[in-house]
């Protein structure tokens, strides 16, 4: 009897194990036409954080798609900084994330914050991709070479060379106040980031 019971449960567990492989849900904007690569559902997180909430953010300088270079420490004493790492250009959820931040410049301003979008793609790829999003108000930075060096410093470089879908909120003293290394297959809900920004002033 025990064996049969066991078989039933094995069947059930087997069926449940199919669930994670159901394709991740996303809504692609027609702005990208048929150019978005539809990959498989990935391991939610595939790296080990190297920083903590309360620790000093590692400094970095990266080239921007708009030209020039941006240095994190330049904003110390001036602005709160949000880093939005997204895994790769031309992928579904990523193409769906920054255009949302593009319409909430006011929320960033109210919280005296700026946003850096970062991927490990090179500048020309980022240029072509972000052009489909309309004019972005925030800098998009390339962590292409040395490949993923900044992502590695924060501990969000995955084993296949792309980054996690991760958000860091860094205060004016350069201290990390919020980290969300999100399931790579899902977009972080906007309210979580806005909540973290609103906490900064309290």
């Amino acid at each position, binding site marked *: *009897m025990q064996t*049969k*019971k066991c078989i*039933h*449960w094995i*069947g*059930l567990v087997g*069926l*449940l194990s*199919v*669930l994670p492989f*159901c*394709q991740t*849900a*996303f*809504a*692609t*904007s*027609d*702005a990208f036409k048929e150019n978005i690569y539809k990959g498989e559902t990935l391991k939610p997180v595939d790296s080990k954080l190297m920083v903590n909430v309360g620790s000093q953010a590692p400094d970095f300088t990266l080239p921007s798609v708009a030209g020039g270079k941006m240095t994190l420490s330049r904003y110390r004493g001036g602005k709160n900084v949000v880093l939005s790492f997204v895994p790769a250009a031309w992928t579904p959820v990523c193409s*769906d*994330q920054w*255009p*949302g931040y*593009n*319409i*909430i410049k006011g929320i960033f301003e109210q919280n005296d914050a700026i946003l850096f979008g970062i991927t490990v793609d090179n500048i020309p790829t980022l240029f072509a991709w972000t052009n*489909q*999003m*309309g004019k972005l108000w925030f800098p998009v930075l390339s962590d292409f070479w040395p490949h993923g060096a900044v992502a590695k410093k924060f501990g969000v470089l995955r084993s296949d060379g792309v980054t996690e879908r991760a958000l860091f909120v860094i205060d004016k003293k350069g201290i990390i106040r919020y980290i969300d290394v999100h399931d790579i297959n899902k*977009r972080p*809900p*906007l*309210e979580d980031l*806005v909540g973290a920004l609103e906490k900064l002033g309290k």
Partner: protein
Amino acid sequence: MKKTFAHSMILTLLILFMVYPAVADNKAPQKGETLPAFNLPIPKTSAEKAYLGLSGEGVFKIPQIKAKVVIVEIYSMYCPFCQKDAPGINELYHLIEKTPGLKNKMKIIGIGAGNTPFEVDTFKKTYQVPFPLFPDKDFTIHKACGEVRTPYFIVVKINDDGSHRIVHSQLGDYPGPEPFLDLVLKASELK
């Protein structure tokens, strides 16, 4: 033992039933078809309830909206074209509302694919959207609609007996309020 077997079978079927919508190869709603089965929450504000001709609490289906024609836009706060089209869709709403013959016959709603209530609210505030928007946080409706790219427009004609039919659907390419209204009027044969 029979009981255990029956239990596990029921549980298995229930899970299959839950999983099926996620894996089913649904297709985009097309002209001539009826809408996929899904519910929307009855709006909380009296203004939106009045606009849709609904009352009370709970859920409703689109054909329950008190109108002859309902324009459904599947959009996302994160979609650049939906953002670009938002002012033009608002104009369409105002055009309908200021036309006496249409005001009570044609309604617009938006469904935010994968958008949380906060995200829907952010979009509504940013673009001052005057018609009801509904969150589809878990992509349930989006999946039922064949995971269409956004924005996707569905024009639904509701008959007097409560039955309905999709009379037009299109992916993007919003031509502006007047041409779109003409298109909807022709497709729905609304006089």
